[in-house]
């Protein structure tokens, strides 16, 4: 029987027509599902009252699948079939995943997304994530006693197209309609009600199990915009566990532990770490399989000391994100803490010190993302009045553009543009009578296509033959609210059209994104030179081609000497093009055009005469 919830005034649903919607934080370490009930966002718990679902999936030999706490227990004994942190593999190729060699999985290096061989066959990260989502969906349907109209699923702000698409695919596979993908920091800010708060810039500091993300958000007129993101894909609460684990090994004076004993000590370290967030000291008592015993006590200060460098390490990305956004720490209006690891008091202190203000910690840092997603889902499902409605804007992490002649990138949508966005740019044909044009869509900050990431290629065919430069081809880029890109090209006079929905070409790592951003800045000088060189080379080719074409058509207008002189200039320019000096090429181009000045004038005269032939002069006078 359906139990009733309190609706907003005037928003009672028709019987059987409740628009049940949830928010899902599909985390690297833990996942949660939340909904708005009786006007309040709450996380939904399982039968035992736990709302956090460890993001761990175990495929068992008998064909059943364990998800969550039950699977965690098998991590040590059945590592190959027990997949943790699958989020790191989403939309990634094998070569893009860091530290594969230390992972216990049996990877299959197929093209596209990496796959894992398990006792139940080969599984893709999308399928594995779908198991987590399916578990959460079932929990939600049991808690809400109905079918869901959909979910808002959160993703890190830096997730690229491939990773976002993989997340959507996983939801579809789990039978969950996706209302929207939402950036995690934006969701956290919404949970804190910052969308109703004073306009200004907010920082979201998210330290999870294995990842650190910092996002700078700007709120204006009730709309969020991500100004910049930064982080470290290999820094999180696990590193604090590991540091404490090493400290224990050091102090305990035991023989090098077996895999299983190490695993046990690691779990104990994690427990102690979590305890230290609320207690001054934590016991570490473990009886090992080896017969040895560990009997230690770690104090909060000792723990803070041994992990100080890790805390410091988070401040680097903070500085960079602020620099990218062009802001000083004191220009930030509020700091939101997200992720279980931000419970550690020394983290909170360091953040408070850096920003010169106490961060927001009154909401549960494990839950804020899911709660914010639930609030957004509630709005999208139509359970609130229009006037309360809000729209959330996100940005694209890397510029989107096209390859132009000579392997250069032409940026169509610059990095950090807010979503959704549509931009169009006109291009033209390069050769006379050209009837097709190839487009290469790329993502990245560098000037040369070879330094950017290739997203898609497509062709526009059926362009009516025209002289070079006469066709007007309008290329439109459109990125929807989920951050997914579609590109279309249209020849304006004939209306022929071609388009692609950018299908994820998997395989860009966070480090690569970071690297691409960094090298974009560092190589700005080199890039300028490379660009200048390419531009001159392209121009030279164009001039040579035009000249040769003219000679072919109207060679009769030239004397043998004149013709030889022009040909010599062409040879000369070709030689210069092979070099690296853009200025020399430029002077070669100038030389060739001087050599053809007279010829061009003569061609002009003769073509005008031809054009006029057969017409009476007065036809042209009106």
């Amino acid at each position: 029987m359906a139990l009733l919830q309190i609706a907003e005034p005037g928003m009672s649903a028709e019987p059987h027509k409740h628009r049940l919607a949830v928010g899902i934080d599909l985390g690297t370490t833990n996942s949660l599902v939340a909904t708005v009930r009786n006007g309040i966002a709450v996380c939904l718990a399982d039968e035992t009252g736990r709302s956090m679902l460890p993001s761990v999936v175990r495929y068992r030999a008998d064909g059943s699948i364990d998800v969550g706490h039950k699977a965690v227990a098998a991590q040590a004994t059945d590592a190959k079939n027990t997949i943790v942190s699958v989020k790191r593999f989403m939309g990634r190729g094998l070569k893009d995943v860091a530290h594969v060699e230390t992972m216990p999985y049996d990877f299959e290096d197929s093209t596209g997304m990496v796959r894992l061989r398990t006792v139940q066959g080969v599984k893709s990260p999308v399928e594995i994530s779908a198991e987590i989502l399916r578990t959460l969906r079932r929990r939600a349907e049991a808690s809400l006693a109905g079918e869901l109209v959909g979910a808002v699923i959160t993703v890190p702000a830096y997730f690229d197209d491939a990773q976002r698409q993989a997340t959507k695919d996983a939801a579809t596979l789990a039978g969950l309609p996706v209302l929207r993908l939402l950036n995690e920091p934006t969701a956290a800010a919404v949970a804190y009600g910052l969308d109703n708060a004073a306009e200004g810039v907010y920082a979201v500091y998210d330290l999870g199990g294995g990842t650190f993300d910092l996002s700078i958000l700007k709120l204006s007129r009730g709309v969020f915009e991500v100004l910049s993101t930064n982080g470290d894909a290999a820094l999180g609460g696990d590193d604090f566990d590991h540091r404490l684990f090493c400290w224990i090994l050091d102090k305990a004076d035991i023989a090098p532990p077996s895999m299983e004993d190490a695993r046990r000590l690691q779990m104990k370290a994690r427990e102690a770490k979590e305890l230290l967030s609320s207690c001054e000291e934590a016991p570490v008592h473990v009886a090992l399989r080896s017969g040895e015993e560990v009997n230690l006590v770690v104090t909060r200060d000792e723990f803070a000391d041994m992990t100080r460098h890790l805390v410091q390490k988070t401040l680097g990305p903070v500085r960079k994100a602020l620099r990218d956004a062009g802001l000083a720490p004191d220009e930030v209006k509020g700091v939101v803490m997200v992720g279980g690891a931000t419970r550690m008091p020394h983290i909170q202190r360091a953040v408070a010190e850096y920003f010169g203000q106490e961060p927001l910690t009154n909401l549960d840092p494990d839950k804020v993302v899911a709660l914010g997603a639930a609030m957004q889902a509630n709005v999208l499902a139509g359970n609130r009045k229009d006037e309360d409605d809000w729209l959330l804007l996100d940005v694209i992490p890397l510029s989107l553009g096209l390859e132009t002649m000579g392997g250069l990138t032409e940026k169509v949508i610059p990095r950090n543009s807010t979503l959704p966005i549509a931009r169009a740019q006109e291009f033209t044909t390069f050769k006379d009578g050209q009837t097709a044009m190839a487009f290469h869509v790329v993502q990245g900050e560098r000037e040369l296509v070879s330094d950017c990431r290739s997203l898609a290629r497509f062709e526009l065919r059926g362009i009516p033959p025209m002289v070079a430069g006469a066709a007007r081809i309008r290329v439109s880029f459109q990125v929807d609210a989920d951050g997914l890109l579609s590109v279309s090209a249209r020849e304006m006079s004939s209306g022929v059209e071609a388009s692609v929905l950018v299908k994820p070409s998997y395989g860009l790592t966070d480090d690569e994104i970071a690297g691409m951003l960094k090298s974009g800045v560092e190589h700005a000088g080199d890039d300028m030179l490379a660009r200048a060189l390419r531009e001159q080379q392209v121009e030279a080719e164009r001039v040579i081609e035009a000249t040769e074409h003219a000679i072919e058509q109207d060679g009769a207008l030239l004397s043998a000497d004149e013709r030889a002189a022009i040909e010599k200039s062409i040879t000369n320019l070709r030689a210069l093009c092979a070099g690296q000096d853009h200025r020399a090429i430029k002077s070669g181009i100038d030389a060739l055009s001087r050599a053809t000045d007279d010829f061009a004038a003569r061609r002009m005269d003769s073509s005008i005469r031809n054009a006029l032939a057969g017409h009476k002069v007065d036809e042209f006078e009106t």
Partner: protein
Amino acid sequence: MSVTLSESAAKHVSNFIAKRGRGVGIRLGVKTSGCSGMAYKLEFVDETQGEDVVFESHGVKVIVDPKSLPYLEGTELDFVREGLNEGFKFNNPNVKDQCGCGESFNV
């Protein structure tokens, strides 16, 4: 006769209103629709309407519009848990038969 809240329902309602940050009470009502004729309404109230009948139950204002009142006389709203699901339930003495769903009924 009046319309009341169970103690548990009252506790939850005042908690929800406090968390919501505004609201003077809770509206119980009926509307025609659903598989067996009538359906319940349960909403937060930001301001009462002129003709509303207001009851008070365990310190919470229960607001009913005059058209709904005949169908709700004697009703107690309860808050219950059923497995993972939790929510409000109308214990309505006027109901002859109700749709298994608990959301709509006949008098």
